[in-house]
């Protein structure tokens, strides 16, 4: 357990320096430092002990979040490495064979730009009738965060339904559920999972799977994302791949 926590802390430290969404304006630094102060590996270790259980699923969830929040190849590769270790690809393919640069180019081509991306990582693109950003689904994500007592530091510049933020909210749910019994909390999570995440993440994964030239590492991430969702919901993995809307 200690080794596992230490490992994930190392990964996360790298990500924290390079993550797109941690870029904060000066007035936001105070709030951020409260959170980041818990990110020394030792602290993580302590929290892990306290919680008594960091499941493989949590490592996967955290790494999935870190992957989609990553802004450079090193952070992407680090998240991939953790994921591959926690859940090796079924076919044994060395998913991390791509260089950090190649991973970064493919990641940007699929999710970031500057070109039109085949798999935009925002819920509203899949759920809203206009398939645009900042739609009703974006508001729902923000409202769920608000109910949890958290908010995105991006001040609206990153849509609230970006996958990395939603996975981060899942981490919050996990942590709260681990320490508190609450029907309301369970109901809210059930809603966020079944009436939000499960409605769009499979579509997003389908877009990745149908995109050309996807590196094995990113395919593996997509599969783990599907698997995580299935495990959370108790549903079978989606075998029917819906057509990609993009």
């Amino acid at each position: 357990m200690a080794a596992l926590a230490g490992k994930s802390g190392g990964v996360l430290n790298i990500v924290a320096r390079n993550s797109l969404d941690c870029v904060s304006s000066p007035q936001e630094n105070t709030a951020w430092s409260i959170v980041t102060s818990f990110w020394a590996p030792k602290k993580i270790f302590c929290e892990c002990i306290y919680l008594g259980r960091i499941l493989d699923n949590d490592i996967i969830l955290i790494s999935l979040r870190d992957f989609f929040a990553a802004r450079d190849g090193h952070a992407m590769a680090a998240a991939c490495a953790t994921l591959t270790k926690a859940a090796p690809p079924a076919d044994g393919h060395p998913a991390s064979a791509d260089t950090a640069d190649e991973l970064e180019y493919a990641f940007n081509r699929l999710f970031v730009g500057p070109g039109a991306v085949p798999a935009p990582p925002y819920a509203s693109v899949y759920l809203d009738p206009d398939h645009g950003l900042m739609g009703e689904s974006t508001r729902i994500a923000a409202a769920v965060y608000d109910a949890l007592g958290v908010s995105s530091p991006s001040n609206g510049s990153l849509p609230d339904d970006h996958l990395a933020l939603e996975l981060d909210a899942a981490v919050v749910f996990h942590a709260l559920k681990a320490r508190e019994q609450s029907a309301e909390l369970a109901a809210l999570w059930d809603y966020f999972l079944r009436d939000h995440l499960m409605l769009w993440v499979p579509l997003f994964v389908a877009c990745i799977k149908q995109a050309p030239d996807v590196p094995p590492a990113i395919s593996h991430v997509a599969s783990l994302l599907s698997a995580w969702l299935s495990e959370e919901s108790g549903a079978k993995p989606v075998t029917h791949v819906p057509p990609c809307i993009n």
Partner: protein
Amino acid sequence: MSKITKQEIERILENPVSRRSFLGGLLATGALVILPSCRLLRPGTVDTGQVWEGGYQTFRNACSRNCYDTCSIVSYVKNGVLKFVEGAPESSFTAGGLCVKGNSYVRRVYSPDRIKYPMEQQGRGTGKWKRLSWDEAMDKIARKILEIKARDGSLLGLALSKYSGSFGITHYGVEGMMSSLGYTTRLVGTPCWPAGMDAQNFDMGNMLCNDPEDLPLARYMIVWGANPAWCSVHSMKFLYAAQEAGAKLVVVDPVFTQTAAKSDEYVQVRTGEDGALALGMCRHILDRSLYDKEWVTAHSIGFDEFAAYLREHVTIEWAAQKSGVPASHIAAIAEEFAQARPATIWIGYGMQRHVNGGASVRILDALVAMTGNIGKPGGGARYAQMQTWGFNYHAKNQKQPESSKGWIGASGPKGEFDFSGVKENVKYADRTININKTAQEILDTKDPQVRMLWVACKNILSQDFDRPKMLKAFNKLEMVVVADQFFNQTVEQADIVLPVTTFFEEWNVNASYWHYWLSLNEQAVKPLHEAKSDIEIAAALSKRMNELAPGSCTFPTTVDTKDWTAQEFNKKELDLFGISSWEELRKGPVKAKLTSSAPWSDGVFATPSKKYEFHSDLCAKNGHDALVMYKEGRPAYDKLRLLTPHSKFGINSQFQNLDWMADFNSEPYVYIHPRTAALRGIGHGDAVRVFNKVGEVRLAAQLTADVPPDTLLMYEGWYKGLAFNCQNLVDDLSSDMGSFKTGAPGVAIHDQFADVVRA
């Protein structure tokens, strides 16, 4: 406890109070403060002022595209998100409506395709992109600029290509950014309207047009080489009103346009022979003594010389033979035009994109003038105006750092919005090169060569001419920086791309070059992603420049787009619009207080003679014929003519990439006359190859008799994900005029030729 339903959850989430108390006890224990794992989200709430239900916030916006209509917009915002847009009802020009493009604006802001972050390409055209922070991007750019300065001793190796992607006035801060760095190389001129602009300046001393809202007063209207049904939809209601009041609408165009379909009479002129047609009309009017003798005597010079020219060199039969319009038809419209009072001609920009374009505009001006229709409400040779553009150009007017070295010699105008005139006896100046020959100029320019190109408000690889040559020219550049909103064909060839704001995300002010309304553009929503306005980019660059080399850039290191918009106003501009403060524009657009809807109504012109000049020595001094006269068109260089005009679904390369446009217009076509197609065995929908000396384009054919048998037509535009580019078939030959007012001649976009075969 019974299970909480989805509907209950949604109801709870809709209300900030209920959703924050939903988990109340749980959160009150401080659980979140010791959360181990949430890294992106943080404890706290969003702005409590937000409401889910209820009214929209409205904002004033202005369409900043290069378009006649420059619509006044009201935008509707809810929870910080732009929901929909409408035309402002206060403007009697926009009159509450927008065009198909304007109505798509929400999609532009929230398209998942937007450029979101500064990024760097590892090899142009490779598609290998890495994200940069703004600091990293500015550092790379600033270091390159300093390296160029160290190498060359000046910044003439840094060139700017900017044109009309946004006509918001603070966007001239891009030119300001260049000046704030030093003396640089500027691609000057305009591909749009310069030949006609010079022509009107020679004839009348300025380019002024009647208020389009006075069109209902016209008794006879010729729309000549313009297609307002697509390109100025708000003008159509004024044309219709005139028609309803009994006026005749004649459309002169080589192509049977949507405007032609709305006309009472369509005249299919041979491309580039507009001047011949108009001269035939002038000759007939002269022969029938239907011209306004009193007006030409009192208010013009050179008319007798013009009349002699007509008698000696022009016959109606010659005009018919040149223009392809039967002599009887020329005579009929000439008589009708001359006898209707007032009569007007809308001179389109399309008809002057020729080697004889300026000469042809002078002839159309002469036709309107000799019939006494200049200076008359409902009359006029309507081309464009810039008298409502009297801003301070505060963003643009930046000072070079002291000790900057530059081009030695006089400096002419740098485009049509440079009102500073010709400066002589300056120690240093910017180096100016022709924007319409961007590729050739980059290839040819030496001592120092152009090393770095900054592209803003422009998609040069879709819109500039001779694309194959442009790609060669790019090979010579050491760094290309492009600021844009979408990944167009220019961004594809960039080293660094910078995301820029849409006009909903910044403050600005906009005037039209056609109507007389002034519109404020308020920031309606926060910038999405990491987009910055052009002046915020300039400020960020200045900050890094000064960190690396103090004093190397004079641009302020912080700007506020609202403050900078406010600084564009002056008393003269406010007086023109009858307002005492720019803030009054927050209540809605205002119209200039015109003494008459017709310029030149007092019969006094801004020419050297103060009269209308059929004979212009100034024109001769600028290298053209002093007298209004015919100028030959470009000889054919291939079997068929090729026209590449504006599409209904885009303005230049903007809008067509949006999926909402692709729903209606998903792919480009070449339009071919059925007879021409039959000769080549081409059927409707066939894949074809259009080719000429410049290059080739592969696309599908559509057969239509709306185009003449000798003409191929394809609409310009940039389609998302398609390689289509009509500039593979358009060379960079100059038009006759444009240098006088814009610093470089225009370009003969519509003097192109090509052939077509089945692919």
